[in-house]
């Protein structure tokens, strides 16, 4: 195991509860998994120190912020040499509209997820920002018509009743 920490069943239960609701206190968690507060608290601190818990974040409702549009962009590079490739990656990562960026196998080089207000904004984003990045050969935009499921949780082996 590369980054393997030994996580036992109790750790996994704690992680599963916290990735669904980070506001649960050590006391509530303890009640849910039949353990007292102090050992639960110590375990959480250890999971934070080890980096198993990376961070705690507030998840916002994009619609309430007027950000109703999600678009996935399949991006192909013009030239694949290391230097020019890195440049494209740096440029894409630095765009705040891009929330996720992946290098993928398949017909395209990258998959990017973009969230915006409306299609006019996407058009402006393409023309004003993406078009400025040299070395992008092709973009195929997949417009999300409906978000059917969206979760930040990772499937863990043990479920808490």
């Amino acid at each position: 195991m590369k980054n393997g920490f030994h996580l036992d069943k109790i750790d996994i239960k704690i992680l599963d509860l916290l990735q669904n609701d980070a506001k649960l206190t050590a006391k509530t968690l303890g009640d849910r998994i039949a353990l007292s507060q102090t050992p639960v608290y110590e375990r959480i601190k250890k999971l934070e120190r080890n980096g198993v818990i990376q961070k705690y974040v507030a998840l916002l409702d994009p619609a309430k912020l007027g950000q109703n549009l999600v678009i996935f962009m399949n991006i192909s590079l013009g030239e694949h040499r290391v230097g020019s490739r890195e440049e494209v990656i740096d440029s894409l990562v630095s765009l705040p509209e891009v929330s996720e960026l992946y290098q993928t196998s398949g017909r395209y080089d990258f998959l990017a997820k973009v969230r915006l207000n409306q299609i006019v904004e996407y058009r402006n984003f393409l023309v004003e920002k993406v078009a400025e990045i040299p070395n992008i050969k092709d973009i195929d935009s997949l417009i999300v018509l409906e978000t059917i499921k969206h979760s930040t949780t990772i499937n863990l082996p043990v479920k808490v009743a």
Partner: protein
Amino acid sequence: MGENTIRLDAIDLQILKLLQEDGKRTAKQLAEEIGLTQTPVYERVKKLEKSGVIDRYVAILDPSAIQKDMVIFLSISLNDHAKEPRSKLLDALKKIPQLSEIYHTSGAHDFLAKVRVKDIQAYRDFLVKSIGTLDNIKDITSHIVLDELKSDTAVYIDDTKI
């Protein structure tokens, strides 16, 4: 602006931006960072929670620490697009815990889904045991993620509006 949109001022947006980065920030810490006193900040946070602008607070785990290093995007095409077989498939897909995201998209395929597994063997098992039992799937293209270059849960908040 949609009907769901709530009127948010520059201070609200600043609070949201900070809580998207670190949901454990206290009202006191938030107040110090934006130069306000604690009580009005606390009340704003409560209001943002009540109105649902803040949906919830979650812990983000390190996938490699729990041995879920591999991300794959699946482009899925339907056989039958009629309402009932379509929603039956969607209900089945939604219940698969390995699928964290599912989108209905424009383009050559019908759906884009994101799955996180341990390794390629686990993905093969997932395809055979979970996806393979579903009806009404015509075609699946798997895009294996070779590198996660950016992964941010934050909704983009335009700084010029703050």
